[in-house]
């Protein structure tokens, strides 16, 4: 169907998209620290010193909005968006890939393109008059938050192409290739048979815990 060159190009593109999405997703993930510290600071100065800040509220939703929008493509590349997969999971990977391949064109790209194009127009208007938040007299600028819509759309578009390529790969090879990541939910790690540091350290603290009884022979 394809020459080796095309397959290699696809692999390169998928890797590029995964890394791009992960880079942006992880970079903006740190907004949670800004949020935690900023809002925590507000609570302290307001309750203890009676001097509320004029910026903490705006900072909190700007950070939250940026965080989840910019994380959309990262989540997509790690297959983290919810699916109603009670039928899907019964299919063979090849069937899954075929159905998904078609659905990406009907149910992914139209919405994402609208995000990109119209989001761009919306942001341009906001930049045009240097829009600021109406929540406080501090005049916190929010045009950058409006640009996030278009930026998230662009990232999703790039990642979406990689996902379509994944479908093509899966249709040819018969199995899915997932993005490698060092970050996984605890239950995913544990169910894969990895050990939990969280559990091991109890013994070191001198507390008598019945160690998890995991036979070496029955588990890899």
């Amino acid at each position: 169907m394809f020459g080796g060159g095309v397959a290699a190009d696809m692999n390169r593109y998928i890797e590029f998209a995964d890394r791009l999405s992960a880079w942006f997703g992880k970079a903006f993930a740190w907004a949670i620290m800004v949020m935690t510290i900023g809002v925590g600071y507000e609570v302290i100065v307001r309750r203890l010193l009676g001097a509320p800040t004029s910026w903490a509220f705006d900072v909190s939703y700007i950070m939250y909005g940026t965080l989840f929008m910019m994380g959309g493509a990262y989540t997509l590349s790690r297959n983290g968006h919810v699916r109603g997969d009670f039928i899907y999971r019964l299919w063979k990977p090849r069937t899954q890939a075929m159905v998904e391949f078609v659905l990406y064109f009907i149910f992914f790209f139209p919405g994402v393109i609208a995000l990109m194009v119209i989001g761009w127009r919306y942001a341009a208007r906001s930049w045009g008059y240097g829009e600021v938040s109406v929540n406080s007299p501090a005049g916190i600028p929010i045009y950058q938050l409006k640009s996030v819509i278009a930026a998230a759309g662009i990232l999703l578009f790039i990642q979406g192409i990689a996902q379509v390529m994944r479908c093509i790969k899966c249709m040819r090879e018969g199995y899915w290739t997932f993005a490698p990541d060092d970050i996984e939910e605890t239950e995913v790690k544990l169910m894969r048979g990895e050990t939990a540091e969280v559990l091991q350290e109890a013994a070191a603290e001198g507390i008598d815990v019945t160690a998890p009884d995991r036979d070496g022979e029955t588990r890899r």
Partner: protein
Amino acid sequence: MTDPQIALFMLGAFIFIIMLGFPIAFTLMAMGVAFGYYAYFDADRMWRTYHRAVENGADTWTLVETWVGGFFNNRIFDLFINQTFSVMANDVLTAIPLFLFMGYIVERANIVSRLFATLSIAARHVPGSMGVAALITCTLFATSTGIVGAVVTLMGLLAFPAMLKARYNIGFASGIICAGGTLGILIPPSIMLIVYAATSGVSIVQLYAGAMFPGFLLSGLYLVYIVVRSLLQPSVAPKPPKEEADIPVGRLLFLLLTSFFPLAILILAVLGAIFFGWATPSEAAAVGAVGGLVLAAAYRALTWQRLRESVYLTVRTTAMVCWLFVGSSTFASVFAYLGGEQVITEFVTGLDISPLEFLLLSQLIIFLLGWPLEWTEIIIIFVPIFLPLLPHFGIDPLFFGILVALNLQTAFLSPPMAMSAYYLKGIAPPFVQLVEIFRGSIPFLLLVLVAMVLVYVFPPIVYYLPNLLYAR
């Protein structure tokens, strides 16, 4: 087809599409935009500039440009972007990443094994002591992290083998872990209630206050069941051998002071700040996250790797929940604009059913939806269909929300899609059969039902705290 018929077709098509397994957030987005394009299609308005250009005899290039541009003049696009922005600037949803972050940090704070070990000793004279300790650990740990999968798998590796070693009945032990771990989505500060508050417009503070007693009622029912069953049928929960059970009171107190109380105080501080109006839920969540960091540092568990993990998992889970909101906000407004909401309201009010029958019917539908779907989709997409009907039947959305939250406990426990059971099966020794886990969960499922009936018959269980705190 009339507009309302289109709306119903839209809903039907959506349900069909999600069964194909495509990510739901994007399906909602694309369907909202596509059906919205139809709903807001207005040829006069969209090609006004083009017609003006024709009248003015503009050059061919301008004509082509304005004609093509006309296709993008549909008002759905403005609606779509405005709805997206309103999700981004939603001050209720800001609490989600903060509570998730707190949860991921606490999950990694080396606390769960200590907690279970201490509680096992503290509860050693109670019948079914290990089961009781496991349930209390699950309840407290699940309340503070809110992440069902993590609680079930961690407790499945910690308490479950211990119970099996003590020759507990496999089904009984698995039921305790699964049901206990699932409590995290009910007892405040739970993410599920924030999501319900954002979709229903009910105050999150009042929802939290309303969910307190029902949450502890359910946990209490579980506890009573464990003790009573262990008393009546000692073979399911044999007493541990005597010799390891002796420990001085001072040592026990010290253990409790270093494991149970710090976590309990963190939770009570967060909830207290919310209930007494010292801080908004988002602010309390931020303080809770700081508290979680301090706790992790105190347990010498705050490593760079764990912080990174918590931060990156927070962004992934937040994106998962909030992109659903982005999709559903546009979808829902288009659905309502086409008159879909009204058709459903008219249909249901035309059925001539009593409020109780409506309540039973709606809870049954939500229960059934819980088989194939997860709580996120159910609350963000399907519960809003019932919300406009509540005033007609005189049902308080707060009360309805608590019932839904109780009901969705079953979604994790009942086959075919019992996530809690799958998590446990995933880490349990191979001789533990899925069927045994399911069988062990049945008594707990029935207790959820009992709790729902109790809440319905005695509404003060829900209303006592909100009334006391906010004089509703």
